[in-house]
């Protein structure tokens, strides 16, 4: 009886110690992970998040400029929906998949921006601010894409690298002026919606990766 009790007590102690050790190991690992995450969020993630929000602000601004430059039908043409444009939503369940989705979408938007720029070059005066802004958002999307790629590599170093070309993008067939106007506005609206989703995604990711510190850092963001 005594031995049984003694053995039982020993087993209980061993179990408790193992549990505490496991907990300690988990805590050490978690703290290491948090440290790494904090280091990450202090640079690339926050930088990417800011860039996404900045790009989103620019997309908002360019839509205003676009509407102002398209004449009386501007409100109507921006309410039309078109197919064949990149999906503004972010797909994927895992964070890496979502980030890959962002990367793919950004690459898909690029030829559309070029098409809209070409169309608006024919429709606008050479010194139109819209053309400058179209150039800016096109370059900004590239910068954002490069930041997403870097972030992806930092956060998911073991995952396969993001593709450089992102696959073929289908552009619309030749369009008349009205269609061009509609097309341009839809592209910009879609891009704005997409950037909004990217910002949300990155903010969520930041909260996941950086926790309270990041929130404190960006409390005025």
């Amino acid at each position: 009886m005594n031995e049984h009790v003694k053995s039982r007590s020993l087993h209980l102690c061993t179990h408790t110690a193992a549990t505490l050790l496991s907990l300690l190991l988990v805590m050490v690992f978690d703290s290491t992970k948090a440290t790494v995450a904090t280091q990450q969020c202090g640079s690339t993630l926050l930088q990417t998040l800011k860039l996404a929000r900045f790009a989103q602000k620019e997309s908002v601004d360019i839509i205003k400029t676009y509407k102002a430059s398209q004449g009386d039908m501007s409100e109507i043409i921006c309410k039309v929906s078109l197919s064949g444009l990149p999906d503004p939503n972010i797909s994927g369940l895992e964070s890496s998949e979502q980030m890959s989705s962002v990367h793919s979408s950004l690459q898909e938007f690029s030829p559309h921006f070029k098409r809209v720029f070409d169309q608006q070059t024919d429709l606008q005066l050479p010194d139109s601010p819209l053309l400058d802004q179209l150039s800016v958002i096109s370059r900004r999307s590239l910068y954002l894409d490069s930041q997403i790629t870097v972030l992806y590599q930092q956060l998911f170093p073991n995952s396969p690298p993001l593709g450089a070309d992102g696959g073929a993008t289908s552009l619309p067939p030749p369009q008349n002026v009205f269609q061009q106007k509609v097309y341009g506005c839809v592209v910009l609206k879609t891009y704005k919606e997409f950037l909004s989703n990217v910002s949300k995604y990155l903010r969520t990711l930041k909260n996941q990766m950086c926790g309270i510190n990041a929130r404190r850092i960006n409390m005025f963001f």
Partner: protein
Amino acid sequence: MGAVRVVQLAVLAWLASAIASHEDSVQYLVTAPQKPELQIGTNFTATCFIKNTTEVTADDLRWKYAKGEIPPEQYTKISETALNVTITVTNETSRWLFCFIPKNSEHVKIDRWKYYHGINLKKGYLPKKPENLTCKAVQYKMSISQFLHCEWEPKHQQPGDFSTFYKLNVHVLNTEKVFNKTTTESSADIDTETFPSFMTLEIWVEAENALGKVESEHLRMEANSFIKTDPPSNINIISEDSFPTSLLLNWTRPIDKTHVYLIYEIRFAPNGSHTWSHVPQADTNIDIQSFRLQNLQPNTVYITQVRCKNERDGYWSEWSNNSTKRTPSSKPASKPDVWLWHISESADEEQVWLFSKEPEFANGEIIEYQISIQDSKEKLPNKNMWEKIRVTNPNADSSTKHATSLKEIDLREKRSHIVKVTAVNVKGTSPVATIVIPEKENVPPPVQKLEVYPDAGKLCVEWTSPNSTAVSEYVVQWTRAGKMNWQREKKGIRKTSVRGNLEEFVRYNVSVYPLYSGWIGKPLHVETYFEQGAPIKGPSVKLNGKPGSTEVHLVWEEIPLNEQRGFISNYTIFYSDGTKTEAITVSRDTLSYTLKPLTRNTRYDTWIRVSNVKGFADGHNHTFTTVKYAPGEIEGIVVGVSLCFLFVVVLTMLICICKRDVIKESFWPQIPNPGASTIGTWSPDYHIKAETSSENCLSGISVLDVDICDGKSVFEEDKACLPLKKDKYMSEEHSSGIGGSSCMSSPRQSVSDSDEGGDIADTTASTVQYSSVVASSGYKGQTPSLPSQQAVFSRSESTQPLLESEENPDMLSLEGSRQSQRFPPESLSHCEGNSDNPNQVEIEAKTLDFCPVGDDSEDRQSDDAQSHEWSTTAPISSYMPQLGGYRPQ
């Protein structure tokens, strides 16, 4: 080594042949390498080849710079036709290196230029590594400019023959975007197409020249760290009455927060202050657009500025424009600064004017002062005796800035006065300020020593504390004409500077009053200038009275205080007669001076120069002319001369009086009276004979006119003589009475020359009557027994004396021996005498007794002697006028 040498030779040979193919084929020397680019400080080896000739060998080759031959120790003979030289390239190394043949063979002499070939050396340094690379992107409209401006060092090109080119590179990390720009300057603006916000940039500069390339350190930063935005705009300051020590600031950020996350810096200062107060950076290190300034002074105008920058790195924007706002008022928090100014002081009464400056913490515009003056002999102060003085125009008088004139009070003797003052603004009343004006007999002691001097743009006041330890504070007061200001200093202060707007060139009276718990001590005064300057103008000089002959008395007035502009050190008196300028320096206390000695009758310019330590100024010229004679000088001379003349006259008169007898004898000798003569009895028959004789001998009469006297005397003489003239016809026995002739005529009948002669005598007043004895015989009267010897007397009216030469011819022709008759001067002078002295007449008569005609020849010897004696005095007696006239005989 051998293989290397072979390769080198082969290369050089090929090089030489290659060069030779391009050069003139007749050139006998070729150098290599051509146009080398050399780094200063390194060694350089050049080779000289001989080609197309066997006249010379490598032993004949020499190397030289443009200015001198290179020593053979630096040569290396490669072969019989090639010679190397190795030199160290320095800054001083000349641009050209020549290979030549100094040999003077005929062949070389003819084609010397073919034995000459040079290398153009281009030398310099490797480019310096660019350092201190900085880049900046400024705000453009509501975004950031796409142009990134970068600067680096060195700012200047290096010395040498090579230009350094800088290539600025901007790589947007994680992209393929690389922007670059090449320049020779130390800065460049690079176009990034779209400013890569939130992207990491890698920036570096490559410096490259002919000698090599070097890169700067790579600058890797987020693009936003290079941003310099515009300053915040629309700074709005809100003042809230319930917070008199606080102001609320709002502003508009210069750029949207999505572009840049900004932090701010705020600074503020009271209006007029040059010292900014900064809000702690920790309070504004966040992206805010409003801030509340606290712990400010109520009722004070504050100037506020805000600037911003990117949250981490980046450049601060410029400060925003000034934004001003006054904090709300509150009741005065400190006592007013009360002081007095003595405006008059007499033996038994003193008048002072009370002033008050606003409290240091007035906390609002002072609208009123309340003053209470209590006599020391009054029992208890009346609490209701506060007199209210409205501040009607605060700070109107700039000289008493912030000071208000309260009231004038008369201080009664042997009483001290306690003055209490409070300041009132719209929010309340200040604490009470008290000063005590002690009675004269009990004034606390002054400071011991006071020095006032300008120093470093300020007027420093330094004093020594009184012996008493009860001093609570000091008041430094400075006054100028009609204006006063003051400042208070704590009791430990011994040196301060005047905190007021002092004007240059104005004389201030600086006083230091010790205060003994409000009791005003005795002051010490010093006059001073904040800064002295040269006087504006000199004094106007004028004469005191009229100019003298050799001196003038100058007077001038001290120039007005505002024109002195400094302490006068002295006056210099200048005076000039047009040829020479004299200067006399007198002390500053002198306001008059007597210039002497001056030249008589000379025009002088004079002026006064007033001097101080900073310069001088000349007054206006004053011109005067010295007189020839000083006033009274002429009168003095006249009086002197007159006195001398008078003295001489008096002296002469005295002499005349004292010596009248001598004079009388000299000028009016006794003339024998012919009437009293023993031969004075003339027989009447003589008259007929004489008349006959006169007619007969009329041809022998000489008439001479002599003008020896003035008309008047002669006229009078003529008058005197007139009866004689009239009588001469009535009495032929009358002597002419003239001169010595009369002597001769005395014993004889005297006959006037003619009637015409009398007329002439009447009409010619200046004539002197002479008589000439023309009788050829002796005295009739004396020799009445010889009637045949009748003498004829003819009176001469001539004005000329009868000279011997004139008399002789006639006399000789007529009488002959009569010429030799001469009479002593005494006898001649007696002719004019009218003396009544009978004795004298007798003496004369006796003398005449020795002059008979018959004796002439016999006594010639004695006559000659007499003649000689007479001749010496003859002119006197001969020209003697007939002053006495004729006495009727």
